[in-house]
């Protein structure tokens, strides 16, 4: 499932330099189209895949801050909320508007993309505002500031008429499709991997390993931290925007501290710093509750146990997490990527990028 999303910069020398930048895009698009075609028939599969895609974007983007840079942000749901509400309100207001030179469906998608970008940029701006003062500090301060930010966003939304207050915002046009969502998944992963492999990424790793040493070597630690934080917030905003356009109603209850922790769990479970780890963990944790539901349904419709048991799904989920963290404290992959842990007979990629 994650194959279409992975960047494929394999053929380094065989590809002319001009093509290198867009090659992954060219490879990914047909795969995504196929993906869209396959899932078109089942609304449940589409819904589940959409949730999964959004979770992947969130986990991968948070991994840029928590994994690569070694900062601890626990307010990711706040940035997601900014993106969700800004793009949601924009789409609601542009519902009746269409670009005259395009067919209606196409212009909807253009406006949707625009709304997403505005949401993402708003989240990035918030990320900048939150990050600039707090990232000058070290350690746990960022955690507290981001936590506070998430709560502020939630309370503001809850008390603003334009955002539907506690009841939430409903009637947002349902523009998100797996194609669109996985296109953004792909972009997020691409950006995350390119950052990891660049000199920018090297500086981030250096900050993560030893901030004092990095600074002594001439790394502008605050600058790098703020930049990675802004990029991460931008994608969280995009994820929120996508989320708002396939969930029938968004309300403040969806963007609580618990949601932030879910994303942190994905990153930690996958291995701090491992992009593919974050992807695998996001997929796993999205499918796990539904998988448990299926397992309980096997007990039969008649059985009252199957009914009662839907409630204990979440404790079981929690228990599995505890077991996983006890048996693999470094996460599924540690800082390595998927291809580093594959069995030997599968040809490996060069260890060029991290």
């Amino acid at each position: 499932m994650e194959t279409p999303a992975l960047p494929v910069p394999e053929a380094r020398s065989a590809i002319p330099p001009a093509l290198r930048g867009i090659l992954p895009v060219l490879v990914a698009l047909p795969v995504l189209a196929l993906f869209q075609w396959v899932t078109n028939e089942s609304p449940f599969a589409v819904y589940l895949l959409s949730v999964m895609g959004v979770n992947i974007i969130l986990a991968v983007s948070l991994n840029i801050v928590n994994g690569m840079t070694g900062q601890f942000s626990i307010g990711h749901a706040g940035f997601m909320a900014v993106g969700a509400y800004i793009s949601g309100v924009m789409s609601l207001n542009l519902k009746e508007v269409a670009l005259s030179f395009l067919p209606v469906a196409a212009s909807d998608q253009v406006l949707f993309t625009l709304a997403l970008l505005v949401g993402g940029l708003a989240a990035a701006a918030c990320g900048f505002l939150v990050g600039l003062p707090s990232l000058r500090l070290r350690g746990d301060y960022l955690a507290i500031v981001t936590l506070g930010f998430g709560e502020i966003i939630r309370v503001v939304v809850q008390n603003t008429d334009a955002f539907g207050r506690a009841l939430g915002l409903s009637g947002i046009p349902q523009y998100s499709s797996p194609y669109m969502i996985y296109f953004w998944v792909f972009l997020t992963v691409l950006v995350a991997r390119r950052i990891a492999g660049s000199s920018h990424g090297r500086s981030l790793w250096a900050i993560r390993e030893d901030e004092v040493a990095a600074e002594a070597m001439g790394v502008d630690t605050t600058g790098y931290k703020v930049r990675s934080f802004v990029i991460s917030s931008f994608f969280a905003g995009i994820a929120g925007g996508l989320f708002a356009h396939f969930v029938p109603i968004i309300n403040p209850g969806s963007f609580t501290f618990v949601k932030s922790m879910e994303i942190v769990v994905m990153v930690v479970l996958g291995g701090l710093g491992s992009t593919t780890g974050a992807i695998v963990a996001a997929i796993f944790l999205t499918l796990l509750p539904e998988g448990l539901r299926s397992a309980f349904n096997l007990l039969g419709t008649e059985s009252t146990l199957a009914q009662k048991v839907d409630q204990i799904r979440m404790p079981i989920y929690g228990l599995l997490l505890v077991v996983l963290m006890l048996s693999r404290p470094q996460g599924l992959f540690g800082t390595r990527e998927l291809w580093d842990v594959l069995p030997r007979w599968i040809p490996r990629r060069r260890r060029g990028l991290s």
Partner: protein
Amino acid sequence: MRRLAPMLLAALAVLAAACEKKTQPAPSGEGGAQTAQQAQPAPGGETPAGSDVILLGQVGALTGGQATFGISTRNGIEMAIKEANAAGGVKGKKLAIRVYDNQSKPEEAAQAATRLITQDKVVLILGDVASSNSLAMAEKAQAAGVPMITPSSTNTTVTQKGDFIFRVCFIDPFQGYVMAKFARENLKLGKVAVLQDNKSAYSIDLSDVFTRKFTEMGGKVATTESYSQGDTDYRAQLTAIRKTQPEGIYVPGYYSEVGIIARQAREVGLKVPLMGGDGWDSEKLFELGGTAIQGSYFSNHYSPDNPDPRVQKFISEYKAAYGGVPDALAALGYDAARVAIEALKRAKDLSGPAVRDAIAQTKDFPGVAGTITLDDKRNAVKSAVVLKVGDGKTEYVTTVNP
């Protein structure tokens, strides 16, 4: 960074191109709502016909902030289904229900509803209590053409989602009418004051309707003051109210504020009764209000003290099965399931539109929480009860019919 710019440009260009591609799937997402309505009922009608079980679905908050709501509702529904099965089922088949938890979150509610519709192929969905969760489910049920009955979501927008969405409880504005009628006809009040919560759509709805109806019935609303949820000092508003010398005060808020308002009203010398809506319905009201709140009235869905034998039978059976007195949510869950079962019996087959039409015809249905008739907006036109706050418990006063 230099590499990134052309790459992003290329990506955007391709994205724009991709939009063209989206033209085919997009209509099937929205326009599909209509086509699905015709397409869906066929499998929906066939699958249960093949087996000897009719599967219903419920989505409720079994965990999370509103867990007691979901569990009470589930108990009520379960009871109704057991009764129906004991009486021989529907169309010679047994009924079964599949319950999914939504963790009190709308996105989980939508996911669970989608799963019930497309994977389990239920003929009908029941749930949820919180209006935001019901709204999320309604969107999915309407698009798939599967009827949905919400037992206790009172927000008006829920049934506006489409013709497959019903409710068996009254809507928020109705409560304002109930209290106006009760104040005018039973309490014979001539002049009242209103104290509304400006932060809650529910409170504003109720007070607007109350003011309009009470004036129409010949009463006079002397003044309307407002507060914000979470305030702790209401003396300024109450003093202003006292100046107008009202015979009663309408406070359509939640129990958390109402308790304090009652205490402070007595402090500033207002001895008149307070009146409110179902937001008062909590054990906490007695604790917060103490003796100050005693003798006040509020409208609710149902009262366990209602002497009607139908209600007393339900209560004794519920007690035997689950222990404890059923709350309004259990009663509404029970009613919703029974309305659904009656409709399934009457429907000519089990397809979505047939069941929908059968539900829409529900008329004078004898529910535990009032007699249910569905109007053309798919809301229940039904009676509400008025309760009087006593010492640590409520007393049934009267039933107000629409």
